[in-house]
């Protein structure tokens, strides 16, 4: 090994490094005094919450100083999602509350859309404005012409509101921009999804296989904790990634695969596992259908064949197949989470699902467990009127397997030239910065310009709020009640979020916003409780608990009804597929004209002088949502472009040099990005962290810092099965100076 050493101090400044010049600053709201720290009381006032910084929703405690100011947030020991340990983002959640750039009061647009000229308004004015425009759209185009884009805890309230006023067009970017292909692939194979938190039994696994999944950089708390436990117990980790990820650094085997060729590797593994008879014969015979077709299908996909495609050495493919077999059934070929890469993603995840089936890991200890969820009673509300048109009427025949609505279908249907079955004329956007979430920003902006109404609910002035007609400022999760958390896990459980403090400024909880709007629309019977607190209290009393109990405990775990977390020996399992079996060969896909078995199709390669753009997560940030959080910005305030040393040498690039990235369609980053020369990335690719390069000046801390990958994702590889937007088919080159004409792009 040549000794080429890279030394990086990840967390911003060291201590002494700052002695020369740069000065730090104290948070505006000084949290706790040194005196108070020294005389720390163990029994300070604390209130329960579950975190809203990401979708993992860890339950914790918010501690306040003796002056009643929010001081810190720590995990709840009883919570299965976090086991008492919050991740950096959850720990830094206090910054979301203290961020002085937060939205403070409702805003109504006064000049042309996108110019960002607003006037401050009262809540009532904002609601009147929205409801009158909404009525106009409904009269002219039908109630279905309003679409809801939503993310996070507020989704349930706004979904109720939309269902009540007769629009079925409700979409979450977490589907078509994230995990949709995974859900559909596992539905097709096992008749069940992998849920959130994922039902991967990493804690007890003997072999964890990660296909581009960068656990440890994605901060999916429970997964990281369990991966660490698995490392302690000596589990084998196999990581497939063109980048030497943190997980690769913890792995026994790292397969530095050529990007976009994962299906070829997966087919070769199936070939090895089937033709060496490594597979779990009893399990396959008992539970699976289509084995013979699969065996025939992978006949020619030898490791030597895959080597030519993936650049992964045959010997390494063989060894890792054997490792998986040795660990079977306590092996997990991880389904991943953000999997919309190349447009054939559902098929790639199908290949992952099939491998798990061959190894007998579904329903087995150390593989995938059966989740249990606590069911709460919901209040009686009037039944929803059946809408006359659904999202399927927007583009008939498209994405027949989709079980949720792809956001991109709603965007497409907002543009006349696309000839949708009917036009979407109003958007209601809750807690999702669509310009950064959905690829091809210019396309999204074009859709927005066609709208008669655009409402945005958020806590921060994200880019998308700048394009709104009405901006509704929500208070943060630390200042509100939300629905009890009932996510599935090993044990059924509930968790409470309650306000630690009063909402700052003129901000309000999502439930209140949805209910007040429902009143204006004459739909308040759908919100029978005046506030979330009363609803929670009513639900808790129904199960023999109370709000008081939950305020003291935060989390309540229950026993499972049955001892069925894993399949019992010789258990007859009815899978929720058409055949009732695990479908290695998907009759469901076949009936819609899709490949019943995954096929490797080569993808476009970068042209000369261009490199494939790969993006990912940093552990201290959630998408672009946390980029302005003072605590988290302090850990990481910009992204850098990772470039292999060979490539950097060819281009004469230096570490920390500021460059612009330009893609194959001529799109250029809004701001320069610093170069990070590292052996951790392949020579045919570059890597950046998603969520930076914000163009919104009101976010003073993150404006202009780093580059946005979304800006460079103009080519979208749409998955024909379910509408996922594949985002890894873009190629970039380097500009050391930003040419004037390209500024206009």
């Amino acid at each position, binding site marked *: 090994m040549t000794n080429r050493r*890279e030394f990086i101090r990840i967390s911003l400044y060291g201590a002494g*490094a*700052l002695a020369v010049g740069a000065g730090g600053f104290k*948070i505006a709201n*000084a*949290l706790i005094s040194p005196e108070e720290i020294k005389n720390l009381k163990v029994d300070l006032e604390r209130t329960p919450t579950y975190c809203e910084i990401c979708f993992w929703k860890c339950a914790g405690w918010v501690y306040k100083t003796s002056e009643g100011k929010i001081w810190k947030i720590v995990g709840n020991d009883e919570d299965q999602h976090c086991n008492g340990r919050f991740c950096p983002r959850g720990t830094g959640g206090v910054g979301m509350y203290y961020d002085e750039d937060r939205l403070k009061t409702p805003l109504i647009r006064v000049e042309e859309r996108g110019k960002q000229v607003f006037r401050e308004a009262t809540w009532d004015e904002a609601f009147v404005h929205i409801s009158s425009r909404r009525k106009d759209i409904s009269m002219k185009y039908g109630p279905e012409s309003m679409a809801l884009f939503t993310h996070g805890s507020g989704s349930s309230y706004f979904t109720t509101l939309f269902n009540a006023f007769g629009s079925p067009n409700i979409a979450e970017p977490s589907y078509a921009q994230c995990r949709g292909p995974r859900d559909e692939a596992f539905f097709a194979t096992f008749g069940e999804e992998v849920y959130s938190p994922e039902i991967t039994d990493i804690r007890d696994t003997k072999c964890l296989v990660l296909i581009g999944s960068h656990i440890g950089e994605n901060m999916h*708390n429970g997964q*990281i904790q369990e991966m660490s436990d698995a490392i*302690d117990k000596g589990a084998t980790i196999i990581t497939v990634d063109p980048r030497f990820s943190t997980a690769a650094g913890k792995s026994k085997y790292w397969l530095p695969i050529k990007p976009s060729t994962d299906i070829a590797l997966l087919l070769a593994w199936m070939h090895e596992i089937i033709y060496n008879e490594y597979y779990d014969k009893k399990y396959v015979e008992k539970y699976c259908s289509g084995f013979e077709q699969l065996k025939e299908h992978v006949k020619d996909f030898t490791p030597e064949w895959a080597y030519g495609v993936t650049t992964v050495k045959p010997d390494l493919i063989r060894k890792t197949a054997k490792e998986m077999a040795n660990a079977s059934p306590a092996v997990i070929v991880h389904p991943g989470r953000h999997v919309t890469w190349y447009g054939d993603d559902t098929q790639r995840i199908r290949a992952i699902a099939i491998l798990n089936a061959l190894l007998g890991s579904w329903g087995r200890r150390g593989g995938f467990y059966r989740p249990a969820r606590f069911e709460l009673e919901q209040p009686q509300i009037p039944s929803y009127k059946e809408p006359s048109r659904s999202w399927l009427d927007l583009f008939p025949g498209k994405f027949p397997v989709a079980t949720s609505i792809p956001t991109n279908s709603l965007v497409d249907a907002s543009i006349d030239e696309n000839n949708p079955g009917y036009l979407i004329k109003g958007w209601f956007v809750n807690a999702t910065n669509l310009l950064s979430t959905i690829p091809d920003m210019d396309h999204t902006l074009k859709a927005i310009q066609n709208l008669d109404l655009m409402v945005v609910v958020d806590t921060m002035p994200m880019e998308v709020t700048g394009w709104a007609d009405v901006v509704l400022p929500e208070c943060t999760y630390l200042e509100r009640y939300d629905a009890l958390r009932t996510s599935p896990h090993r044990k059924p459980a509930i968790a409470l979020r309650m306000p630690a403090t009063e909402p700052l400024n003129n901000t309000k909880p999502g439930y209140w916003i949805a209910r007040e709007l429902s009143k204006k629309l004459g739909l308040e019977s759908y919100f029978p409780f005046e506030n979330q607190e009363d609803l929670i209290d009513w639900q808790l009393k129904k199960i023999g608990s109370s709000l008081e109990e939950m305020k003291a405990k935060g989390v309540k775990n229950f026993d499972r009804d049955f001892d069925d977390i894993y399949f019992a020996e010789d258990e007859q399992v009815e899978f929720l597929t058409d055949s009732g079996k695990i479908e290695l060969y998907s009759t469901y896909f076949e009936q819609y004209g899709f490949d019943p078995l995954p096929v490797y199709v080569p993808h476009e390669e970068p042209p000369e002088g261009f490199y494939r753009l790969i993006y990912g997560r940093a552990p201290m940030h959630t998408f672009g949502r946390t980029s302005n959080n003072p605590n988290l910005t302090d850990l990481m305030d910009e992204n850098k472009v990772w470039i292999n040393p060979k490539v950097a040498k060819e281009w004469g690039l230096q570490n920390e040099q500021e460059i612009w990235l330009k893609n194959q369609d001529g799109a250029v980053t809004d701001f320069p990005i610093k170069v990070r020369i590292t052996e*951790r990335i392949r020579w045919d690719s570059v890597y950046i962290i998603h969520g930076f390069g914000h163009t919104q000046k009101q976010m003073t801390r993150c404006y202009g810092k780093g580059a946005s990958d979304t800006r460079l994702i103009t080519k979208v590889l749409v998955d024909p099965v379910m509408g996922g937007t594949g985002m890894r088919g873009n190629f970039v080159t380097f500009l050391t100076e930003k040419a004037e004409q390209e500024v206009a792009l």
Partner: protein
Amino acid sequence: MRYAMAVDTKKCVGCSDCVVACQTENNVPMGFCRDWVVEVMDGTYPQLEMEIRSERCNHCVNSPCVRCCPTGASHFAEGGIVLVKETECIGCGACIASCPYDARYPHPDGYVDKCTFCIHRIKKGMKPACVEVCPTKCMYFGDLDDANSDVSIVLKKRKYKVLIPEAGTDPQLYFLI
């Protein structure tokens, strides 16, 4: 009593949770930190090795910072914890220059600040904030004079190293390798 900490480089993912937990626990001013994360990479693609470490004050037995402090503000507290008494510190920065680990920073209020092993928590029977928050549970803290402490047990079981041993400071931050 001899307090020490061990950090498992095989488990640390460099998420910096220890940094932000320390910052909120101790109200460290923005732009500074008492602990930080280092990533060291060796090799050429695809033969690579990476070590990730959560670092902080080494609470050295033979501490140059305590020795060079002109006012006695830098001192040893119970269990060998190196502390700075803010009221006695004149902010001269001699300790910052003397520390081989770059573990101290000038607090905007005019004194030098650093990791305290969360002595205020230890006194209450709790662990340092960084240890308690770590999602990978890669940090072990305790009294080396107690054979049953977390840190004693893990140092008996595992191979470890210290940083810059040639400085002769007898550091008490151990890295499991």
